[in-house]
Structures are given as C-alpha cells and as structure tokens.
C-alpha cells in the first residue's frame, strides 16, 4: 500500500480556498440591491444566452459569479427543490432562507469532501412586502452564508463595488435610481477611481417586482433596458446631488448616448 504524505487540514483548506478565490476573482461582477420597487439584480455579462441572473421561485431570484457549469448545477437543484416544496406544501411555503441554507450545506459539503471546491459565489434574493423585509443571502465557495440586507456585490472587485453601493444605497429609491447606482458600482471596478463605460449589450438586468402578484421575476431587456439606462442629463443630475465626488469623475466617462 502506498504511503501518503501527511498534509495538515489547515494546509488543505487553505489551498482549496485560495484556488477557489483566485478563480472567482477573475470573473465579472454582479450587484444585487433592494429598492422601493423590488430587488434589482444586475450582472455584467457578455453572453446573452448564458445568464448569471435567474428566477428560482415566485418571490426568489438567483445570481452567481464563477464557473458556469457549477452554478448552473446549483441553480437547477434550487429550482427543483423550490418546485418540489411548493408542490408538496404550498407556494407560500417556499422561502429564500430555506434555499440559502440548503445551498450552504451543499457548498460546504463539496468544499470539505471533494478535492476541488466549486469556484462560485452565489446570491439568493427574496423580495418581501417592504424593502426592509427583502432577504439577500450571499454564499461563498466554502458554504459560508452571509445575510446582507440592502445590497451586495460579488465577483473580482466585490469590495470596491460594495463601497460605492454603501455610499449611495437607499431602500426607498425607485428602480431607475437603484439601477443607476448599480451601474455606477459596476463601472467603477477599474481601480484608482477610473470608470468604464457599460453598454446594454454587456448588461444582464432583472428585477423581483414587489407589487407583482405570483411570479415576481422579470428580465429587463431590449427596449426596456434602453429606457432604463441613465441619459446624459439625468446622470449628472442624480449624481451631482448626493455625491459631488462621483460627479467630478463623471467627466471622464464617454457620452452615454452612444450606448
């Protein structure tokens, strides 16, 4: 029998965590935030067919960064779990917390049992009756579960995105303002305060609409997305008021009309 070299559990876990973290940090970012009209999910995604933002159930959405096949696997399992639960009990008995906990157990199990952890970070978002009742859970590759009320960011530049969101987030903001903030956060990941221009063809946007009965998930695409993109005037207007710093860096951004 071949003798195995001893490796300390700390070392194994550290290596796995580093492996997962390194690969996730290469991915593009996703922002999820609650606003007056519901929960807004915005992803930077060059593909129009391979989504990063999905519907899980009536009031529950899903967003992910990392390896597509792995989070797709988790998403499918979540839809199945939600549908089976709703079928055996009632549609109102499916909630975001149950799904998030099942994901946490699953990711935790994979992280400690398998040689390769899932290189994903996912969000389970549930829309409530009021913005304060919204549930946003962020789950990392090792099964850690974080309850992040209000807003969250995932992906390579999550920390710097979170700063932007923390500054501008308002539970009572309408959808358009929340979208402008999400866009501002996603385009600020260049580092050193530089901003990138994001156009509609690299954005994937969906909303869990608070006022909509039944299935609340709606994708905002095509013309609806064009209409939501902040135009030149409204951008300076909305940014000049709350935050003069953002307005000054705004001058570097190319004309948004081009999008």
């Amino acid at each position, binding site marked *: 029998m071949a003798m195995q070299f001893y490796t300390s559990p700390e070392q194994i876990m550290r290596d796995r965590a580093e492996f997962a973290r390194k690969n996730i940090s290469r991915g593009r970012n996703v922002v999820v935030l609650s606003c007056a009209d519901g929960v807004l999910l915005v992803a930077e995604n060059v593909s129009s067919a391979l989504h990063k933002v999905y*519907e899980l159930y009536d009031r529950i959405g899903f967003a992910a960064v990392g390896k597509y096949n792995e989070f797709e*696997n988790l998403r*499918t399992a979540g839809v*199945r779990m939600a549908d089976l639960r709703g079928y*055996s009990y009632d549609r109102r008995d499916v909630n975001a917390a149950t799904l998030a906990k099942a994901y946490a157990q*699953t990711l935790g*199990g994979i992280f400690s049992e398998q040689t390769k952890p899932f290189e994903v970070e996912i969000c389970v978002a549930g829309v409530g009756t009021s913005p304060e009742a919204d549930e946003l859970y962020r789950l990392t590759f090792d099964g850690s579960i974080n309850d992040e009320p209000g807003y969250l960011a995932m992906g390579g530049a999550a920390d710097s995105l979170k700063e932007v969101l923390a500054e501008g987030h308002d539970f009572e903001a309408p959808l358009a303002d929340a979208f402008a903030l999400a866009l501002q956060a996603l385009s600020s990941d260049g580092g050193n305060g530089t901003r990138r221009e994001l156009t509609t063809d690299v954005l994937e946007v969906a909303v869990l609409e608070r006022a909509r009965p039944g299935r609340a998930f709606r994708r905002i695409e095509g013309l609806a997305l064009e209409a939501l993109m902040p135009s030149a005037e409204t951008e300076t207007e909305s940014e000049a008021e709350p935050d003069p710093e953002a307005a000054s860096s705004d001058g570097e951004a190319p004309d948004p009309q081009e999008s």
Partner: protein
Amino acid sequence: MTGQGFPGKLPNAYMTAGTSSFSEFLMQVAPEMLPGRRPLPPGDFASVSAHATTIVALRTAEGVVMAGDRRATMGNYISSRDIEKVFPADGYSLVGIAGTAGLGIELVKLYQLELEHYEKIEGAPLTLNGKANRLATMLRGNLGIALQGLAVVPLFAGFDVDAPSIPEAGKIYSFDVVGGIYAERDYDSIGSGSIFAKSSLKKRYHRDISTDDAVKIAVESLYDAADDDSATGGPDPTRDLYPVVMTATAEGSKRIDEAVVADVARAVIAARTENPYG
C-alpha cells in the same frame, strides 16, 4: 459526493444534469407524489371520487375561449356546485378537465408546474405543440387507474406565439384516456354534456368569431348541455354561480370577469324564457 456528514445538503438527484421536466424529476425522487402511480387493488373505483363534467373550447379570431360549468357529481348526487374545472396552464394556454375530479385537479396542478419548471430551467417556454404533447405524456401514466374507473380527460387550448398570423394562432387539442392527442379545427367539448354542447356549438359557431361572441355561444352551449345532461350545472342566479370562462389571446391567458359572464348568462336565460328552444 457522499453527503453523509451534511444531512441538509441538496440530494445528488437534484444536482444531476439532464431533465427539464418536473414530472420526470418527481418520478426519480418522489414517485409516490405522481398522480396515477398509486397501486390500486383490482376492481372498479368510479364511484369513489366526484366526477367533473362539461368543458367547451372554441377557436376565435383572436385566440381561444374555454368555458366550463360548475358542477361535480357522484352518481345522482351533486357533490359540488361551485367547482372550477378550467385553469390557465401558463401565460398563453388553458386547460380544462373532465372525469375524476380529484385526480384531474392534481393533474392540472402538476401540469402547470411542469410548464413553469421547464420555462425556469430552460429560460424559454415550450412551444404550444410541445405543451400539448407533454400533457399527453402525463396522461399515459394514468392509463392503469383510468381503466379502473378513475379516468381523467383534459382539453387543452392556447395561443401559439409562433403562428404566422393571429387568426391562425388559436389551437385546441383534445385527448383520450390512453394519451391519444387530437388537434381540433374549430371547437371541441369534453365531459358528460359534451354531446349536447357540441350540437349547440355546431349551430352557432362560425370561423373568425370574435372573442365576445365566442364567450356568448360558449355559455349558451353549456346552458344547452345542462338542459339535457343531469351532470352538467346550468347558470345559477340564485347562488350567483356562473360558468368559468377563460381566454388565451396575444395578451395572454386570462379569466373573463365573473360579472361579465353573469351578464351573458342572464341574457341567455332571458332569451330562453322567451323561446325555450333557443
């Protein structure tokens, strides 16, 4: 992935890639929850559950109209006066059931979820034909208990978003207990009063009928069915119970407001008071 140490994690079957069908998934993880999968002792069980009766569906210039009476019977006993037997299957299609009421409603619930589940997993809905075929497949699983007296027969109609033009978009599919599927050209009816409802529609239906007119003749055909079939309930003004009428058009599937149906039904009753033979 053994999962021994993590009892709360998602079971392996959930994580397996492959099917987009909820009923196939159910067959793997919880077959006892599928209607028609329960073992029955030999014998005929037609009398153990209520029977749902007449449903009609018509093609119109804008899509389809489907209507159902409100009665369920057990032999010569009226077990329900207010049962609803017409449902939206999804955003663009409708399904009505006749036969064993308990199983039929369960089948509809599973079918609605089947369509929704597919849409969520695949990111796009099934085509109208695909939806109808899926319903036929689900019916086939019921054949065993259907032969023991617990038959369910659905009627499916919808607006085909892939059709070349709106007048061609309305489609109706009927089924038999073995899962046979038949596309209907103009109108169809199922259930115990279907012979009388169809005779009524035969005299009143014309192609490219407007949705409003189709609602009228659908309610009238149910009146005719109730007139001659004891298991079909007529409009009931004393209890304020009227047929359930739904439409599927370019705007999606929706239920016609009960007040509107009540007005139509009262007009039918008034006309028949003048002339009992319509």
